[in-house]
């Protein structure tokens, strides 16, 4: 009978009690494997650009400023928090932190920029040349020497004239 089933349903509900969590008044404990914002550790990074090769959203970019300095930028705009960068990093320099409350009005808060001093050969003093592994990887990374081409995904024509989308990312080259 319908009335009985309604009573049964109500019993199910009342047995459960109240399940509303007090978030954001109280932080929720996160599991260890939680994939939040990736944090890049410049001390451990060797500049192999493996993360840049494997980011599905193309949000990690590399540029070689001069023979010994490489700049690695994590832009974080389209980052999907997939964790591939942390998977492939040979030095475990990338950790997926537990931060997920990363809403901000200024993209500079999310951007991470690493300036890396690349090793030079102890004998001749030059940076390793190809076909050493570092050089080979460098060829496949997504480079942004030229800011124009850095804009991978341009905004829809419906909204934009011809200015660059991300104009608050300034590449400081010294």
């Amino acid at each position, binding site marked *: *009978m*319908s009335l*009985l*089933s*309604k009573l*049964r*349903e*109500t019993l*199910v*509900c009342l047995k*459960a009690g109240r*399940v509303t969590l007090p978030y954001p008044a109280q932080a929720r404990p*996160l*599991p260890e*494997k*939680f*994939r939040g914002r990736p944090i890049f550790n410049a001390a451990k990074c060797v500049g192999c650009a493996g993360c840049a090769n*494997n*980011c*599905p*959203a*193309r949000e990690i970019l590399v540029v070689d400023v001069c023979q010994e300095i490489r700049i690695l930028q994590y832009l974080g705009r389209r980052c*999907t*928090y*997939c*964790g*591939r960068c942390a*998977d492939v990093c040979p030095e475990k320099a990338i950790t*997926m932190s537990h931060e997920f409350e990363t809403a901000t009005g200024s993209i500079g808060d999310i951007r991470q920029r690493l300036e890396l001093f690349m090793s030079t050969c102890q004998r001749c003093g030059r940076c390793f040349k190809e076909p050493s592994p570092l050089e080979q990887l*460098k*060829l*496949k990374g*997504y*480079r942004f*020497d*030229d800011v124009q*081409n850095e804009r991978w*995904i*341009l*905004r*829809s*024509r*419906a909204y*934009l004239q*011809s200015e660059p989308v991300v104009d608050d990312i300034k590449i400081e080259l010294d």
Partner: protein
Amino acid sequence: MTARERLNQLKEKFGPAIQRADLPGDTRLFVYVEPSSLKAVCQHIFRDLDARYVISIGLDDRPVSGQFLVAHDFAFDRDHLLCSVLVYLPPDHPKVDSISDLIPGANWAEREFRDLLGIEPVGHRYPKRLVLPDGWPDGVHPLRKDVPWNQVPEGFDEEAEFKFDDPPEGCTVVPFGPFHPTLDEPAHFRLYVEGEMVRGCEYRGFMVHRGIEKLAESVLTYNDIPMMAERICGICGCVHNVAYAQAVESAVALRLPPRAEYIRTIMLEIERLHSHLLWVGLACHIVGFDTLFMQSWRIREPIMWIAEKISGNRKTYALCVIGGVRWDITPEVKAELRRLLDKLEAEWREVVAAVSKDKNIQKRTRGVGVADKTLVKNAGLIGPVARAAGADIDCRRDHPYAAYDRVDFEVITATGCDVWSRVVVRMMEVFESIRIIRQCLEKMPEGPLQTPITDELPVGRLGLSSVEAPRGESHHFVITGENNRPHRWRVRAPTYQNLQAVPMMIKDQQLADMTISLGSIDPCFSCTDRLETIDLKSGASRVWSQEELIRLVRKA
């Protein structure tokens, strides 16, 4: 019948019309036929051999063979065989005989390759534009290899409007969407209503088309695509992730370590649990019963927490790479999962016991949104919609993948053909999923999680994979290509087929039942619209060839 026997059967009937056949294993068959006999072959397979129609795919194969290619995929469910019938078409003005008069379910697939590739289906009864936006200029077909992925073509008219068909006599038009409180995603159903009864409808969708297939062919690489595939859909993301990985693995004959197969099975079933519980809540919300909506979502919440424990995220598990999985299931997680399943089963039993006797909900759902067995066969419906009409199809049993051939489970069917039967089918499938996960947890062997891949994947291999999503069969077609990315990747989500049957389901029904009928196929418009064109203007319009684009992005 085995695959070889089926092939011999076809060769007997059609002889010289079959130019070539590939038989990579016992479960896949690729038959290349002459264009003139394509219709006869498809008719024979669909009607005489009683196969199920899956999807039609168009492909610009000009860089490789100088021609266009059209493939029609069929499934022999009883023989555990997925079969693809392919034809090559000449590169200028490619035309192919339309099969949509034989197989009504091919309606959208043919309109789609007409829009996106310019292959004309001759004899199609309703060749209206399906996918491309209304202002798109004619003659520019995005999936062709010479059309760049990141440019708005010249002549794109932003002000163009969709031209609606005329409504039938005596009917008023009730617009439904693109903005409507019930729909989570934009779609437009133009209902022709007489009083309170719906007499017909016109559908305009593909408003959030994202260009995923074009991106996969142009920009992404093999291991990037699973992350993108996962974002085709918010609720059944893992399915697309796994189906794509499986299609590539099937194309290159890559075996997975057994532990990885079991983990994929477990995550797929966890996804099915969460999706069905979500849907039951949603269906109750549509009929105004918010209490049951809250309750089923409360019962569902621990599943999200365990998924977060295993994979790091409540929903986008980012599970697969080609050759394995990325996350392991530790013994603590195993124990917790077992406890969770016990609790879930107990609570869900109570809910099912209460709901099955509830006359109030049944009054709103019995006899509503009827899709009978003929419609299932003609339109190629799959999933709980087909099982509620008595069709006994389920990819987990018919085309086993991952670890499904090593676990026991039942396929739930009902005979009501209406929304209530679909509710019952989905509610009972929850118990089957729990059973499968328990078996996997017991049988899972130790071992590595990924197969190491040492060489580049061979080029030009075809792979098919059918995965049972919570909504039905999700079918992926992959042709491996150069530069570490596929040559063609086609995603057929289950809602793509099921949506085509909605106009027939809501005909001669009340207006109030429109939403619950639509909701009963568990529509996932993001899955349907998985090709979205991120077209952007770079200032100068220029036609980039593939080589130029590659050089550009790799400039040192």
